[in-house]
């Protein structure tokens, strides 16, 4: 059912804005009211523009106002993208025709059309990414201004690729505008839920096994790659994780975990906890479409009451999720994995992907569980 209490995930308009605003060189105009503008502007920390339509624009048409704002922004060298909100989308105005005289990317992605990732994909599709067979290196995708781990993920994968002698081609969607159309034929992903679909997917970078498999495939498509330093680092760091988790298990029982996140992050968390801590995965609840065929009970949850019900039913002693989950747990340990992560100071760019991503995640899990004991 579409109705729910305390919905936990942003709308398609926010997804489109998150995708486009991640590219340096694109100015995003939210075509809607100030109320619709403020949420993505504060969530994404990006310099968005808005038409800030008012009642008279609805009565007499929003064309003049839209063109006025486009005219203001056109003076810069930025490419302009216009994202519609709910009311302009149903006014019956032909916004494509209104904007026809301008070189503008138009995204019809009103909030009622779906969730965050639908808007994100629509926006990326509208950019018409191109592969340049001559471009060396590997694309990284699954990055978004919405995800507090994206910046850390990019830094971590750039480091690992550099250690393997492989260049980073395009990062979808946190890069320069020009790179949208200069992608490599090959892509590794940090978050399958917002995968770009650009190039041949080599593999995931969430979890050490997946990372190792991905780098072993990289060497088959990038001949000059030398992945030994990365493989060696994976093995060394995994040993450190094993040691720390083994020490934990000498004194404590494995946690009983409830996981709430994007589908791909949730699977990563479940596998990591089961592998390193022999944890019981009481439930996996996804914000996005649930994954296929994983050996854990899984369901999609839209609203906070569903989350509360799952936590009450399973009585986990470890909860992985967002600040929404943190606000409804009583005694369980908590680790933040899912946006939004409010109410905590975050100054560093922590990753979830790559070697450091797994290290950071398991470090937080162990410390949270030990603090709870």
């Amino acid at each position, binding site marked *: 059912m579409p109705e729910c209490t305390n919905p936990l995930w942003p709308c398609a308009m926010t997804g489109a804005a998150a995708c486009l605003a991640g590219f340096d060189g694109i100015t995003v105009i939210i075509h809607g009211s100030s109320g619709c503008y403020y949420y993505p502007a504060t969530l994404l920390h990006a310099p968005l523009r808005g038409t800030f339509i008012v009642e008279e624009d609805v009565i007499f048409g929003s064309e003049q106002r839209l063109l006025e704002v486009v005219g203001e922004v056109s003076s810069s060298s930025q490419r302009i993208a216009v994202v519609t909100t709910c009311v302009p989308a149903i006014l019956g105005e032909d916004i494509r025709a209104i904007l026809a005289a301008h070189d503008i990317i138009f995204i019809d992605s009103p909030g009622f059309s779906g969730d965050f990732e639908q808007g994100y994909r629509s926006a990326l599709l509208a950019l018409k990414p191109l592969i340049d067979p001559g471009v060396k290196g590997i694309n990284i995708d699954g990055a978004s201004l919405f995800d507090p781990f994206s910046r850390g993920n990019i830094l971590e994968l750039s480091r690992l690729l550099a250690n393997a002698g492989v260049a980073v081609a395009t990062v979808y969607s946190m890069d320069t505008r020009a790179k949208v159309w200069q992608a490599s034929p090959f892509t590794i992903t940090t978050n399958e839920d917002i995968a770009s679909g650009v190039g041949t997917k080599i593999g995931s970078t969430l979890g050490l096994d997946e990372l190792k498999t991905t780098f072993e495939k990289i060497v088959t498509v990038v001949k000059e790659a030398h992945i030994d330093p990365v493989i060696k680092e994976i093995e060394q760091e995994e040993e450190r994780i094993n040691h720390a988790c083994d020490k934990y298990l000498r004194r404590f029982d494995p946690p009983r975990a409830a996981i709430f996140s994007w589908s791909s992050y949730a699977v990563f968390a479940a596998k990591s906890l089961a592998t390193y801590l022999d944890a019981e995965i009481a439930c996996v609840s996804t914000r996005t479409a649930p994954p296929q065929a994983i050996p854990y009970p899984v369901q999609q949850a839209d609203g*906070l009451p569903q989350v509360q019900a799952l936590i009450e039913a399973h009585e986990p002693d470890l909860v992985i999720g967002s600040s929404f989950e943190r606000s409804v747990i009583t005694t369980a340990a908590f680790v933040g994995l899912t946006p939004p992560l409010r109410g905590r100071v975050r100054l560093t760019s922590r990753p979830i992907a790559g070697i450091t991503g797994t290290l950071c995640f398991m470090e937080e899990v162990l410390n949270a569980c030990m603090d709870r004991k």
Partner: protein
Amino acid sequence: MSSSPLPSNTSRFGGCTLTGALSVTTSVRDSISIVHGPKGCSHHNFSLLHTIALENDALSIPSVHASGLLEGDIIFGGEAALERALAECASLRPKCIFVLSTCIAETIGDDVGAVCGMDWGVPVIAVPTAGFLGGVFQNGVLNALCALSDGTYPVPSDGTVNIIGEKNLEYEVEENYREVSRLLSALGLHVNLRFIHQISYDEIPVLGRASVNVLRDEDIAPVGDHLKARLDTPYVESFPVGLAGTIRFLELVADACGVSSHPAVQDERAVQEDLRADFSDLAGARIVLPSLGVSAIDRGVVGEVATALDMKITSDGSCVPLPLSPPIGTGGIRRMLHRWRRMIHA
């Protein structure tokens, strides 16, 4: 540039009536607020309210229910979606349900009033909102406060004070309330009702018992007038702002409640003397106000405080920060001066 929400161009940037109304209705703890619109509108607002609750160490989570309009509802009408939402919320037996419409529900012409008027077994209060089509954030606040007061009636006054229209999304909301409570206590008065800040629905009928309503600021005057007409309760138009303003606040409230202000005023003057002594090291400091977002009230307070502490407002001194709203009472000025001292000595 009018596509940026700069303080110099505010005509289009007043925010959403829905957010303003929700900042009030979600503060009735045992209620549910239904947002009749797409799920995204509810998420945006719930996320904002949740963040504010975390920042203010609030223990309760706002309850915002989405009717979740989809494309089909927008084509064929969304009243059935609202009925489903009301049925589901009514089954949870809250003390009351607020229904707030959005710009999309307004545009497609849903008759929200008719759906709310059906028998749901619990009080259902329709708050006129309609997103940006209903005005701006402040209109939502005013509409919600007036709608909530419409079920109240005059009762004999008991010498207490109501606090009306607190800015529930304000970071310093509790500190400002404590400062006003401190001043009221100095007059021997206590608060009857925080209308509306973290109260239960059953508390609302006592609204008419107070001898005076203290409004958060002048923007709440329409609610003050509404309550004056409905309950015959006079009002003081703002929380205390400035050193002299704090003394004046004591005198106004005392007059309205028929008590003497003299002892409280004497005590507060002593508190303000202590303040001057504590920040005497700032004498001679040259300060600059921020270039944008400084209201006439801010300028008045800054000028008064600078004069009291022998500081100079110049164009080449230390740029001092101001609270988003003018500082409340002597306590608010003290917190502001700590921030100034940090900048002056940086």
